[in-house]
């Protein structure tokens, strides 16, 4: 068996090794399970590691190689814990679902399972995907492998950290306002949010239904396209899903000749850190070197995107999370005296503070007498943001910006300041509002921490985005292996206790 470096191995290379018989699926899986055993105590990327199942399934893939073929077969993956997986506890990092055993599997997960990937476990997130640092998990705080004292970003921080730390070959996340791209940026990996509707949301526990999209977190743009190929497509169970007008192609571009890249001045005016700005400018220079042309464009309503998002997303969330009422599944308060008490205490005790904050904001924004002033107006802003993009894309092929205004910040530094936390997503939110495909690729380091570069394309231009990102990635030559510097302080963590998949019967049906 070849010695493999889990910090640098791509899915593409791993697949070649599998196909060439250099390594078995079981051995490949063991590489990642060993890395989990080595670093998970510090990184805490997983809420649940399904080591036994992974080992067993990878052996089966080896044994039944003829039947279990395909581009994904035998490649180990981590799955964000807001994607439901039949028989495997799915918590959304919330006390509310501490014991929830899904009775079905999310379409996107089902698609990769059907491709015989090996699932390593379920990754940590901000509770119900609400947050930008993964610190709002009810169970644990995930560390950024580049500096263990900093956050991995969020809400898909567990998936990003797992890939960065070599605990997974690749991962699935979800992106509502940047929840794939921002942690990818902070952890030095590739993360993509596809066009709204490109990937079925069936089985993705809803945060904000009109914004949520499932997306890949990988160590390369090629891997990103490979995973995307297998999760896109119309799903009869999701009325908002569509067939891509052209299938996702594995990227091969090395040049950007003739490509017009728009740089919106508004995105550079959001309090960018100097190091982020420097890496961004260098990357623009590389675009020119590769034959592309960078031009300034204007997206004038950018400054209203963030406030519009923080009305629309909580409004939808307030309804989406209303089903967690202690009646059918999940957490239920003890000894409710009547129905109101059941609802009040179940929800008070089951949800964390950020989730409650957003439910309150959203409920308020939809209330009689306030609807027009908040939700209605936010929707009008959303239309203006879309129009900005339409206008810009009549001039350029793609739009470039930093993914996050900052590199990874110190754990605990923003949890008491929600507005500062919300600012982490200022560059990623507009693509969600407009439903556009956007990718983040690492473009260098600042103070030893990764900086992300974002490319946004018109709706359904996944292939254009991927080709350009692939060419740029080659020119940047970023080394994905993090140094695991710093030391964890365990303050602020809450122990979830046992994270096994066996439901305690008294918990399953309250």
């Amino acid at each position, binding site marked *: 068996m070849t010695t493999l470096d889990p910090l640098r191995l791509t899915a593409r290379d791993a697949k070649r090794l599998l196909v060439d018989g250099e390594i078995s699926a079981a051995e490949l899986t063991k590489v990642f399970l060993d890395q989990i055993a080595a670093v998970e105590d510090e990184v805490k990327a997983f809420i649940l590691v399904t080591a036994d199942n992974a080992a067993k399934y990878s052996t089966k893939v080896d044994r039944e190689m003829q039947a279990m073929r395909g581009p994904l077969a035998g490649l180990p993956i981590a799955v964000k814990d807001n*994607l*439901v997986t039949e028989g495997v506890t*799915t918590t*959304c990092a919330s006390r509310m*679902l501490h014991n*929830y055993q*899904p*009775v*079905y599997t*999310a379409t996107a997960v089902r698609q990769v399972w059907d491709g015989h990937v090996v699932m390593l476990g379920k990754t940590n997130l901000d509770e119900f995907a609400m947050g930008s640092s993964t610190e709002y998990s009810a169970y644990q705080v995930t560390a950024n492998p580049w500096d263990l004292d900093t956050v991995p970003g969020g809400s898909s921080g567990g998936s990003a950290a797992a890939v960065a730390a070599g605990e997974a070959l690749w991962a699935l996340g979800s992106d509502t306002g940047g929840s794939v791209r921002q942690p990818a940026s902070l952890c030095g990996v590739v993360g993509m949010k596809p066009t709204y509707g490109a990937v079925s*949301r*069936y*089985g*993705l*526990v*809803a945060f*904000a*239904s*009109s914004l949520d999209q499932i997306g890949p977190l990988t160590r390369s743009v090629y891997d990103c396209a490979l995973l995307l190929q297998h999760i896109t497509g119309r799903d*009869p*169970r*999701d*009325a*908002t899903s569509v067939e891509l007008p052209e299938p996702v192609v594995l990227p091969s571009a090395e040049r950007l000749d003739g490509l017009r890249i728009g740089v919106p001045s508004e995105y550079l005016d959001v309090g960018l850190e100097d190091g982020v700005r420097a890496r961004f400018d260098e990357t623009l220079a590389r675009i020119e070197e590769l034959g592309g042309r960078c031009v300034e464009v204007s997206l004038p309503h950018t400054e209203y995107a963030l406030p519009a998002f923080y009305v629309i997303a909580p*409004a*939808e969330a*307030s*309804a989406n999370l*209303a*089903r967690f*009422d202690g*009646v*059918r*599944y999940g957490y239920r308060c003890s000894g409710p005296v009547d*129905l109101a008490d059941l*609802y009040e205490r179940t929800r008070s005790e089951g949800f964390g503070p950020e989730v409650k904050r957003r439910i309150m904001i959203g*409920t308020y924004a*939809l*209330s*009689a007498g306030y*609807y027009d002033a908040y*939700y209605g107006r936010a929707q009008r802003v959303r239309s203006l943001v879309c129009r900005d993009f339409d206008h810009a894309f009549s001039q350029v092929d793609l739009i470039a910006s930093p993914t996050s205004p900052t590199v990874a910040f110190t754990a605990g530094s923003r949890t008491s300041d929600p507005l500062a936390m919300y600012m982490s997503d200022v560059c990623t939110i507009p693509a969600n509002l407009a439903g556009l495909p956007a990718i983040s690729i690492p473009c260098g380091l600042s103070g030893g921490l990764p900086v992300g570069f974002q490319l946004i394309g018109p709706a359904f231009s996944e292939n254009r985005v991927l080709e350009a990102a692939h060419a740029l990635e080659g020119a940047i030559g970023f080394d994905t292996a993090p140094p695991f510097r710093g030391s964890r302080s365990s303050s602020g963590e809450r122990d979830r206790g046992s994270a096994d998949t066996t439901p305690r019967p008294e918990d399953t049906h309250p």
Partner: protein
Amino acid sequence: MSDDRRRLVGHEDGTHPDWEPVIGLEMHVELDTQTKMFCGCAVTRGDDPNLHTCPVCLAHPGALPVVNRRAVEYAARIALALNCTVRPRSVFHRKNYFYPDLPKAYQISQYDEPLATAGWFDYWVAGERLRCRINRVHMEEDAAKLIHAGGETGRIAGSDYSMVDFNRSGTPLIEIVTEPDIPSPEAAREFLQQLRATVMELGVSECTMEEGQVRWDANMSVRPAGSDALGTRTELKNMNSFRYLQQALDAEIPRQIALLEAGETIEQETLHFDPDTGITTPLRSKEEAHDYRYFPDPDLVPLEIDPAWVEELRATQPELPAARVERFMRQYGLSRADASVLAPTGALAGFYEEVVAAGAAAKAAANWTMGEYLAHLNAAGLEVGHGHVTAERLARLVMLVEDGTVSTSAAKEVFARMIEERAEPGEVVERHGLGQISDSAELEAIVAEVVAASPSQVEQYRGGKQQVLGFFVGRVMKATGGRANPQLVNELLRRTLDA
């Protein structure tokens, strides 16, 4: 809370010359689609609890709704029957509130962009045609069913525990909302009965009332007679009996009038009607009213409806009761009263038309169908078309009466024996000698006997008291078991008595 209860106050004769009621109705109809509104679970009734559930109708995390196209078709058929415009684009909204029978804690419903708007429905009250404008027809999903165990009231308060049956959760539900055009409780009842018959005729719902497949709310206010203004309304919710609805409105009108005449104001509130006491009590007031926080459901794209598809539906609508009443009057020369009994339901109308098609005269066929036949169905608890009286047999009986083979009175016995003996009318007549006696010789003998036996009546008759003839006819009929040909009897009697 007895102080909240208001005694029925009213004018004793039930009329209020200075005031007129204004009534608007909302009718909910569960559709008989095979599957639920937003998932593939079967729509059933009476099965064991929670057999027909899935992640969608149990609102498991991550599950998403997908619109049932057949439900849209059924809803559009209702809308077309109510002369509404089916809108090319309509939107599903979320109606948010917490209750254990509502698993998502929101109901997917329609709000400011409903499926269909601006229609009307003509209905008949005491021989007069009234038109009620239809505000809208929209689609939504039904809630689950709650069963409260223990306690005395069957309500959640005071029960020991409650159970939820999600079989009904997500059943397609149509809401029909009228304008406040209905002028009386009686009209409200007629409107709903005729509307229900129309919906049933469309084949989109059986509208069984016992199971709550159809239920309604009434909004009611009063205003000075002749005024155009609308007063403050109260709402009566979730009624599923025509009689209770009328009773509730009959109780609510005088209550409102009494308040207004006493210079008080009506409070906008939801009332509960107790049929045992005849009293309405407040359920919740406007201040406690829910803020449902409607907003468009982002899980569902707007419903786009091709106008060509709507035209296809329109072209394939069945004949509706109101149209059939008119046709029966025109085609069979029936009175409106008779046509209104025979025409509204498809099964009975079809039966009647078969009787006529088999050769019976239209008017006689109508009388027999509405009379003996319906009475037989009621007595035997049978549905139209079931039992041993087929349309052909009834037609043959009607024809036997027409051609004089059987007298009208004997025919009733033939009918009864047809059922008893599961036989053709001709066989029955033959077997039991129920044919009409039209043999002059035979009748002459009986007439002679009757006349001979009643000398005083003969005297009266001959003294000019012509009506005594009826006495003799009766006697002859009695003697023949009703089988004598009445015309012939008359003739023979006159001949004998006048001689």
